[in-house]
């Protein structure tokens, strides 16, 4: 486990260091924990922690997937991650100011998730929904699983074997980078099969 430093280093080389593993990310994922956490990371610009160290996950590529200023509320941006191989389809979404676990941006409302249902790989493109203050992906067209995007992709109702894999994000100025995946992508035995 590496201790985060207060040195800012955005270089790709620095990214290769294991600054934060996915478990730490998860533990820091609660609203209460983040502001007071010593595992402070730059996921939340605009706060005191924003100038602190970039976080990244060992072995995963750091990939530019979008720009904060270009995201429109409730309009998913599709990308592939961690490679362009099978089962890498994912979406980046700005959820209209509703704060989410692992969310980035001033409102912490920007998150990214795999599109594939963790039950049997059903494609959930086009299934993003905003209902009152809830943000969900689903129902999956195959067996109707529904996932909570505010809460790290946890199952709301359905058949999932695990939460929807969440793509970990970093914000660098206006640029949004994918830096890791929390949870195994459907159909893979390792997320980093092609590396």
């Amino acid at each position, binding site marked *: 486990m590496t201790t985060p430093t207060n040195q800012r280093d955005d270089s790709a080389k620095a990214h290769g260091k294991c600054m934060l593993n*996915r*478990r730490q990310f*998860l*533990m820091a*994922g*609660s*609203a*209460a*924990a983040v502001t007071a956490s010593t595992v402070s990371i730059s996921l939340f610009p605009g706060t005191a922690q924003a100038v602190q160290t970039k976080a990244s996950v060992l072995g995963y590529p750091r990939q530019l997937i979008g720009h904060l200023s270009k995201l429109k509320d409730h309009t998913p941006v599709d990308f592939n991650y961690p490679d362009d*191989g*099978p*089962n890498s389809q994912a979406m980046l979404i700005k959820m209209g100011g509703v704060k*989410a*676990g*692992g969310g980035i941006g001033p409102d912490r409302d920007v998150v990214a998730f795999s599109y594939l249902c*963790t*039950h*049997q*790989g*059903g*494609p959930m493109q086009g299934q993003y*929904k905003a*209902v009152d203050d*809830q943000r*969900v992906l*689903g*129902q999956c067209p*195959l*067996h*109707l699983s*529904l996932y*909570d995007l*505010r*809460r*790290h992709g*946890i*199952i*709301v*109702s*359905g*058949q*999932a*074997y*695990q*939460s929807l*894999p969440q793509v970990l994000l970093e914000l660098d100025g206006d640029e949004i980078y994918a830096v890791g*995946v*929390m*949870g*195994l*992508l*459907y*159909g*893979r*035995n*390792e*997320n*980093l*099969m092609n590396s």
Partner: protein
Amino acid sequence: MATNYYLPEDSVPLPPKHADVLTTCCDYCIVACSYKVFRWPLGSGNGGTKAAENAFGIDFPSGILQAWVAPAQHNVVMHDGNPHNIVIIPDKDAKVVNKSGDSSMRGGLIAAKCYNPKTPTRDRMTTPLVRINGTLQPVSWEFALDIAAEVGRHVIAKHGTNAYSVKTYSYQYVENTYAISKYARRHVNTAAFTFHDTPSDVTSTPGFRDAGFDNFGPSYDDWGAADTLMVCGTDPYETKTIIYTQFIKPGMDRGMKTVWLNPRETAGIAYAKKRGGLHIQLYPGTDNLVVGAIARVILEKGWEDKEWIKKWVNNGWESSSGFGQGTRNTPWQWRTTWGKFQTKGFEDYKKWVLAQKDFDPDNAAKIAGIPVEQIYTAAEYLAKPNKDGTRPKTSIGIEKGFYWSNNTGNTIAISSLATICGAGGRPGQVVGRFGGHQRGGTGGGKYPRNKSPEKVPGRRRRALDTDRWLYSGNTRFAHVIGTTWIQSMTGSQGLFNKFRELVTLNPHQVRSFDKQEIIDTLKQRTDSGGTVVINQDIYLRDPIGARFADVVFPAATWGEEDFIRANGERRLRLYQKFYDAPGDAKPDWWIIAQMAKRMGYDGFDWKNSNEVAEESSRFSRGNRKAYHMIKVAAHAEGKTLHQKLAELGTEGIQGPTFYNQETGELTGTKRLHDTTLSKEDLARMGLADGAQGVNMVNKKMTHFNSQTGKVNIEKHPWSLFSDFYEWLLPKGDELRFTNGRINEIWQSGFDDVERRPYVTQRWPENWVEIHPDDAKKRGIESGDQVMLYSERVAAQKNTILGVHGNDFQFSELMKNGQIELTKGAVTAVAIVTPHVKKGLMFGNMIDMRQPTNALQPRVVDWISGNYNYKMGVAKVKKIGESAYKKDFRSMSFAPRNIV
């Protein structure tokens, strides 16, 4: 080391080519999906990503619907004393039930059920325990068994057989239930015997029984083959998931209409509505009125299935001949001779329905809190003939939300409605239960009803209510097997207090390490009016084991022994042993056999579970999952019963089973009451001229379970229940309170909710759903910690003899001082959601720590003897905020009806 924090993994080992492959089925819900277990020694090499390198024979990444292994589907267990990897995934080759390897979350995560001290299963019981100086301490089997048996013998000798009460699961494999019921009913021969879900050993669906419907007659194909399917008291997507995803959903996708009676709109109902389904969102307990009103509309319009009725409904003479149910000595006859239920046939029923003001659609709709048009639409969907004069094929399925709110009234009403719609007995035109637990019961002895001191008005005795029997101090020895007893019964906090009084507060407590002194102390407790508790289970349950048991036996379970069980379409499969039971844990049949020998009973010398199964098979003859003929076929082929069933794999065979002595073919039964079964079909089964050899063929194959083989159509008066219903109506600030199961923990709560980190994260503690309007009024938001409480939890106190016709009716019990009002309170996390009906709160059916049954009245349905678990009333107030309100890691407050 794993923790109850869910920490997602991003890699998993694949099973190699050299992995052993064994078949089993899910341990949990009635549907019993097929699974494959892949097992290979640790360190022997994992499978690769190429088809040639793994046991699935496919390339990874795998595609949609192909085999895949989620990290939670891998575990490490001991097999023959050596560590092995196991991967358990749904059987991708399945042609039945979970076709192509569909699965629920419960079954999907079942690998995590296996004992592995690195996981939250580490508290599996591994050794017998005896309570000494207040603490349960590990002892040898011999020490624990000697104590339990000697105290048991003493209780029977001194206080009579009914002082020895046995409360057991009904479902946990035929080998175990056979051994338990042989012990308890045949040998102990106690009337104080019942199953996990009812205070007395009575039918769950009195209306079906009276009509002549088997609970599990239909095949799963039937549920998707109707033109209109009516579903009462459940959303099969939440509970019975794979029946929904594999049968009902495809049916709706091709145009099957649906009618739903349910106070909540959960995912499956929300999807059905999108497909044009009719959701009748009624208040709990009002079903009889709504069903009666629908029947009335159908009869007024003349939409009933006249041909079916003419051929298949008993007239007055037929119904009275043996009272439609065989000999006079049956519960049906005792009930019907009151004249409250029996009709003289269809015309008499029709006349009665049309005369009931209760069933006026406007009245029914008002009390049920639904738009009256829905009653007319439902009648149309269910029974209106098509333009070409043909009829819609109608099927009806029910479950606990329906039959545990007005047990007798509702089940009779739905049987009568089904009959006038022509449902029951034809493909796609069936009536039945969807089911709860799997069907793993085989009777090893007859319940001694005539020894029951409880008598209902009329002529005969009713199975003894074991809760009231205990409550009034008659139970000196409580033998509890695989159930919590307390939390799973209603008014549970009162029961808890009574156990505490009889067990813990009794002065005779074990202070000695000497076996004889321990035995003497416990005997003294029983002689002083107290109770000794012995408990068999896989985990130590609080409070029945942890606080009350004097002796605890650790049980071996699923995957740790070869077992037989059937699912909700009577499909029998072998659940194979694939790993070593933890420590010294033993299967329940073995524990019972050791007890029996010490009690002096003969016939308990089995060496393995196959021997138990083979002895039990003849007792299954004639019942819906009769497996005797599998044994006959097995022996003809030089195999054991278990070997033969293992050969049939995950497809298994549907009971009752038949053996064609000429061809050697073993055949199953797709559906019961199959009026379309042809002579050719029967000839193929080796039954051309009726039963041949030891095959047993009874009426329910081609007819209904009544004297004549036709259906009894019965009356279902609201007045038998209305006083209880009205007493329970909310007063002041109260809200109606009901409870039920939820998809993610359905029928798996006995071991998964605390032990699967992912499930624990999703449902970390007790919860209650509240409608936004009700919540707002009380200042409650999602994530708030709330107190649910009531000052009027009604509890029936004594075992009584009914003399006058309505002695057991709620208002009479109240008047005669048989009901005490107690207080109950449980805390919960509020989920404010529009998917629950306004005015109603819906809680988790059992959280062991905060059981919602604490608030439900401990008053039985007075005709049947079952509790109406779904009927309750409670107040709610905010007491703070839970951690989940702002923590994004656990729970979800998103409504379940987003489509």
